[in-house]
């Protein structure tokens, strides 16, 4: 292969390195991409097979040369062999040691909002996402979609070729086609060009769009995303301008969430969870907690953490907010929408509490709530004096906030008028997620030339002629703001696996400089933007740190007005529908991510499907039970889904999750769940009224990972109120007898003298978001098993979030408890294994020796926590080449017939121990962070050395709230739990 000339590349690398001032920042990949030589070197040297195989050109060359070498084999005897160089690591790039991972700062934007991350790369192969500890939006944690993004990168179903009406073409042929169209458009100022994007937040992308629009003044740019209108337009309603809201949950004493899932999803969710938990946790003698109220149309993990949760019909939300606004500003509730009697007490207590905590409270509305609700909430926060103290207003994060419904309608009008010659669809999936009554899918085909840049060949690709493979975020340069506006420069971690193109590449093709790379685009934008002296230093800092320091948007002041009551429809004939995006696959964009599909939803505990969430009573009224199929008719459309009853669901409301029911998503997303979008009307996409739900008679299997929700008087989760805790800090430990460790015929004499690893999990802080589960899956190469296997309770997750209810079935208290192997010192699994495949080591780790395991499953039977997972079949995908790249080389990939379980991330423990040994010191507290603890947004998991009394985990365990799960069995678990403490309002005690 002629282009592979290692010596030349090395030479260029060396010169690059020589030129670099100091070795500090070179590794942040900027030079790597700047120099094509280095890029090529990386690409060729490390994932050699991968790049050869996937890169179309390379493969052809390979075949050509293979053919040629076969033909020439006979001649070789009389030909002098060419000199070839083997490339040793003598000239290794600094710090690139085989086996030693490097971490690069970048960001993963979810719906335009950057989630700052560090990517672990093994030999320049990204394998794991961690939060960026220096970034205020992450502080080291990452949420579920971000954790799973690494699988998205290696998704074998990604669009891999440039297609023109089903035929594979080259990108060059697309460009020549595009140039032809553009030449014609230039004559009519581009009036036939339409650009459809998702919400654009990237400043450099926005600048590119502006440039294109300047070149083609007649062209139009539209933005469309199915969710997020409420908060955008709510600010517009309240303030007359588009504003972004930033909350400070660590400052708030009283919190009211109106159908918001702020602890799990949405901009700033990771930071909010941390701030919220800081205010809620009562470790270390702290005796105060914020009080948290939630009003919900469908139970969420966030609402489950509330001290008082109230189910409400979606159509009543606005009335509730309006009444609250009225009462808080000294008025009386509107007579038109009085709260129902049951809610009156809740409402009064809530209003009183909020009034008593003016300036120290937060009212937050859900992403999927209407603009009116958001506007009212803005007004309420203003009335309570929260703006500027706990609620900050900043300029919008979006590059150009618009009413996206208006944009969608304008696009439709353009399409119908037949004036669209070239429609560029950058990302998104409008054919799937636009309201079906608008028939965007049909209208799209009225554009003469439709070009789609998409990560997958999906529902929208189907109606486009040109389909271009979109590069993954980790494959190109870009930039994006975090929830507070802090800009992250997004650097790539790997050359595009499938020759994908970035939106920057595509937009560059419209301009005078079509050959600009995304790196050049972003760098040029920031060069122009930078005002200080030394751009190079600024740039390197920004890339190394993962964000631009001090770029958070400043707070602005604005006055919210109380919006007038609109016409309220009161169609009470049928059921109400509450629409929410899925907490993991969101609006359907991550639907082909198998980790996310198999991740149990926090409340329903369902995997692989969405369901029609009904309350017990509503289901009984309809004569349906779990897994019964029903048809839902609303807005002239009918969809079929299966029923799942969830305690706490308000009566008369069907909770529906968007994003499922994709037909062209890929092997994971196809056919998972049912599509809710047809039911969403364009006039009221926030909820539905008067829906007809009828039983169909047949059933549909739903794969839940937990089937029993009561604690059966066993107290696996210990709970108590703040008052109880204040009266008797040790109340939780008194709940069970302390095991007498002497009552054994085989007393344990072993002393753990070196390290004694242990973990403590604070149930007060745990929000049940499941980020730890994905982090663990990513770190430990845990296989995805598929719906059929989940149905037979064979899921492989090493850590699971148990969810228990207590109290009344119509509005129970909900508790979460993450359970992984608790690493018993007296492990029941250990004594029953006939081949000693699981043994406790001198540091108290219960080690699973995969190679020794013969698979009797006796250990799992004897495990009282049932945390062991068995490879009943060959679950690991040995076939998909791309997935092999994702796996963590430090963790064994398990095959069929082997038991596995949580190891406390033993690979990380050993890594730290080796480093410590080299420096001749002990491992420092906090040096080892298991994947679950690292990513936990609310920092509910603490790991460390129990032999070190100063370690944080020792302090957590010394807390009066600490208890052992099933401690009475005398298994002496190393993982213990801190009692879930809640702070109910004394006035609502009997509620």
């Amino acid at each position: 292969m002629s282009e592979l000339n290692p010596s030349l590349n090395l030479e260029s690398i060396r010169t690059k390195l020589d030129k670099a001032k100091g070795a500090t920042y070179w590794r942040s990949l900027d030079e790597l991409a700047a120099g094509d030589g280095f890029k090529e070197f990386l690409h060729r040297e490390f994932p050699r097979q991968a790049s050869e195989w996937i890169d179309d050109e390379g493969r052809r060359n390979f075949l050509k040369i293979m053919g040629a070498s076969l033909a020439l084999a006979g001649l070789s005897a009389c030909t002098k062999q060419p000199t070839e160089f083997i490339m040793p690591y003598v000239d290794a790039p600094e710090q690139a040691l085989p086996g030693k991972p490097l971490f690069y700062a970048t960001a993963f934007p979810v719906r335009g909002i950057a989630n700052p991350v560090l990517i672990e790369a093994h030999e320049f192969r990204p394998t794991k996402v961690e939060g960026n500890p220096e970034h205020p939006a992450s502080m080291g944690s990452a949420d579920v979609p971000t954790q799973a993004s690494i699988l998205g990168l290696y998704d074998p179903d990604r669009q891999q070729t440039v297609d023109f009406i089903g035929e594979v073409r080259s990108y060059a042929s697309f460009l020549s086609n595009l140039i032809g169209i553009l030449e014609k458009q230039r004559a009519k100022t581009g009036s036939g060009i339409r650009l459809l994007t998702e919400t654009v937040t990237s400043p450099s992308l926005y600048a590119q769009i502006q440039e294109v629009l300047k070149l083609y003044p007649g062209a139009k740019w539209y933005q469309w995303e199915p969710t997020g209108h409420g908060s955008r337009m709510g600010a517009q309603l309240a303030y007359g301008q588009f504003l972004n809201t930033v909350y400070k949950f660590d400052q708030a004493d009283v919190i009211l969430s109106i159908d918001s899932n702020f602890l799990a999803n949405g901009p700033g969710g990771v930071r909010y969870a941390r701030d919220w938990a800081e205010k809620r946790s009562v470790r270390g003698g702290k005796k105060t907690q914020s009080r948290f109220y939630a009003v919900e149309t469908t139970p969420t993990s966030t609402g489950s953490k509330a001290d008082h949760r109230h189910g409400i019909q979606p159509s009543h939300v606005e009335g509730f907010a309006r009444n609250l606004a009225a009462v808080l500003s000294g008025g009386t509730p509107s007579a038109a929408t009085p709260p129902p009697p049951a809610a009156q007490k809740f409402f009064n207590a809530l209003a009183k509490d909020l009034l008593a905590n003016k300036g120290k409270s937060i009212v937050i509305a859900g992403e999927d709530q209407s603009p009116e609700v958001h506007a009212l909430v803005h007004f309420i926060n203003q009335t309570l004096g929260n703006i500027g103290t706990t609620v900050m207003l900043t300029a919008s994060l979006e590059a150009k906030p618009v009413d996206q419904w208006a944009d969608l309608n304008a696009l439709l009008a353009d399409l119908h008028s037949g004036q669209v010659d070239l429609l560029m669809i950058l990302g998104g999936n409008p054919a799937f997620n636009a309201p079906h009554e608008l028939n965007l899918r049909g209208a799209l085909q009225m554009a003469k030339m439709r070009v789609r840049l998409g990560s997958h060949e999906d529902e929208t690709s189907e109606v486009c002629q040109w389909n271009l493979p979109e590069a993954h975020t980790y494959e190109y340069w870009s930039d994006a703001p975090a929830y507070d506006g802090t800009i992250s420069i997004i650097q790539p971690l790997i050359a595009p696996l499938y020759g994908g193109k970035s939106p920057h590449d595509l937009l560059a093709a419209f301009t005078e400089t079509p050959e600009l790379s995304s790196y050049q685009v972003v760098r040029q934008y920031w060069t122009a933007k930078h005002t200080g002296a030394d751009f190079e230093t600024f740039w390197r800092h920004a890339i190394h740190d993962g964000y631009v320091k001090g770029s958070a948007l400043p707070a602005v002041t604005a006055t919210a007005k109380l919006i007038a009551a609109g016409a309220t429809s009161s169609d009470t004939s049928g059921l109400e529908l509450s629409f929410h995006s899925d907490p993991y696959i969101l609006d359907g964009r991550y639907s082909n991510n198998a980790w996310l599909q198999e991740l149990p939803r926090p409340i329903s505990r369902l995997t692989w499907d969405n369901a029609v969430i009904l309350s017990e009573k509503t289901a009984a009224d309809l004569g349906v039970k779990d897994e019964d199929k029903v048809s839902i008719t609303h807005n002239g459309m009918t969809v079929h889904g299966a029923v799942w009853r969830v305690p706490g669901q308000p009566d008369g409301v069907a909770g529906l999750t968007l994003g499922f029911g994709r037909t062209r998503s890929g092997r994971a997303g196809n056919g998972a769940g049912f599509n809710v979008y047809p039911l969403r009307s364009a006039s009221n996409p926030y909820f539905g009224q008067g829906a007809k739900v009828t039983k169909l008679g047949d059933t549909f299997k739903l794969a839940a990972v937990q089937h029993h929700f009561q604690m059966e008087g066993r107290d696996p989760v210990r709970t108590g109120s703040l008052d109880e805790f204040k009266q008797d800090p040790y109340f939780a430990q008194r709940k069970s007898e302390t095991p007498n460790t002497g009552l054994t015929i085989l007393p344990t004499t072993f002393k753990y003298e070196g390290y004694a690893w242990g973990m403590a999990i604070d149930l007060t802080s745990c929000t049940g978001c499941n980020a730890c589960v994905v982090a663990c899956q990513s770190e430990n190469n845990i296989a995805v098993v598929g719906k059929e296997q989940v149905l037979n309770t064979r899921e492989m997750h090493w850590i699971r979030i148990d969810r228990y209810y207590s109290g009344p079935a119509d509005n129970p208290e909900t508790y979460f408890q993450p359970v992984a192997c608790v690493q018993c010192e007296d492990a029941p699994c250990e004594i029953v294994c006939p081949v000693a495949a699981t043994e406790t080591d001198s540091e108290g780790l219960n080690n699973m020796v995969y190679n020794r395991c013969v698979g009797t499953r006796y250990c799992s039977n004897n495990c009282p926590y049932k945390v062991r997972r068995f490879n009943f079949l060959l679950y690991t995908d040995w076939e998909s080449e791309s997935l092999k790249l994702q796996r963590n080389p430090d963790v064994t990939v398990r095959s069929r017939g082997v038991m596995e379980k949580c190891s406390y991330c033993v690979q990380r423990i050993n890594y730290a121990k080796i480093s410590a040994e080299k420096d001749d010191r002990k491992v420092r507290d906090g040096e080892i962070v298991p994947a679950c603890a690292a990513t936990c947004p609310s920092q509910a998991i603490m790991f460390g050395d129990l032999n070190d009394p100063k370690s944080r985990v020792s302090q957590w365990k010394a807390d009066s709230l600490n208890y052992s799960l099933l401690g009475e069995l005398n298994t002496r678990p190393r993982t213990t739990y801190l009692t879930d403490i809640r702070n109910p309002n004394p006035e609502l005690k009997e509620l």
Partner: protein
Amino acid sequence: MSQPVELPDQIYVGPVIDEGHSLASVSDKVGGIVLKRKTTLGWVFGLIVAFGLLQALMASATWLLIKGVGVWGINIPVGWGFAIINFVWWIGIGHAGTLISAILLLLNQSWRNAINRFAEAMTLFAVMCAGMFPVLHTGRPWLAYWLLPYPNTMALWPQFRSPLLWDVFAVTTYLTISAVFWFVGLIPDLATLRDSTRKPWQQKVFGMLSMGWRGSARHWQRYEKASLLLAGMATPLVVSVHTVVSFDFAVSMIPGWHTTIFPPYFVAGAIYSGFAMVLTLMIPVRKFYGLEDIITMRHLNNMAKVTLATALIVGYGYIMEAFFGYFSADVYERFMVWNRMTGPYAVFYYTLIFCNIITPQFLWAKRIRTSPGILWIISIIVNIGMWLERFVIVVTSLHRDFLPSSWGMYAPTIWDFGVFFGTIGLFLFLIFLFVRALPMITIFELRMLLPGARVKEPVAQ
């Protein structure tokens, strides 16, 4: 001293061997089944059915080895399913043979002479069926030999604290002793067959198998000694094997498994199911081969009595299990008992109570004990009941243990049934071959029962 005791009519059901038999006639009758009797169509048909079932074992085991144990219905939390249930069931069935041949020999119960060979063969075949399951049920059966303590380059012993390892020793010992005992007992009869047959190939085969037995007094003296020794060795096995099997459960900490009553309760259950299986097999064999004069009502009656006695012990076990669940005041134990009686698998629990406690109560009646048809039906019900007992122990204990979040359900798949019925096929296939190729009744011991033979004890007792 050697006068026959007169038994009252209500108890006495007849002699252990009918009148009119002589030393020659019993040899001819039993040996003739092997040597002279034509292969009947019924036997061929039965063999084909059994062979067909055996193919189910082959197909299921092949699929299992190709795909992994996931083809079965097991999961987390129910990590053991049909495989272990069947293992315990088969091992239990084997116990009747050992009890009859060893303990009853030591106790000088001469009525056993007519049935011990058959029961021993049954033991051997049942242990073969049982032995397959522990290997097949492992996730990586090709490594199952790691359970054996052999010197290896890994410098690793098995983990001696695990009851599964004790199982390996118990079952292999059991298989060895049973096979040796059975074969040693066969030697004099094989010699009889060698001497009776006219066919040269049979003479050669039986000649080799009889290991030069000439029937000299010295041979007999050594034979008796060997028999006694083997009986002495096998006797503790009757108790120990199923005790060790029960340790698989009792040593663990799962409510419903962790029970000190398990060893005696398992042993009684094993003998119970074993006798039921002997009845199930004996009654038709006796009929088809016209052996009513050798395997008499007396035998059926005695076996039915043992069945009833063990049924009562097992019943006591069930009651104690429930009582201790309640009496422990332990939330997990109490729930386990409650869950067995009212949970999703309650129907199996009540069927088991019906099969194992209610049904055998009919055996109090002499009329039923002496009607082979009814006895046969009862014995089958008991076999089913004992299988269900293991199902209830294995599945209902596992499926709902300590943490309600991990509770689950278990349902067998077609491959579970395939392997189960496949082993029944193997068992029947071997039984069919056995009754055709070897004397199913110990000829020389039968001769001792004859009034003309010198017997140590009175015949009718």
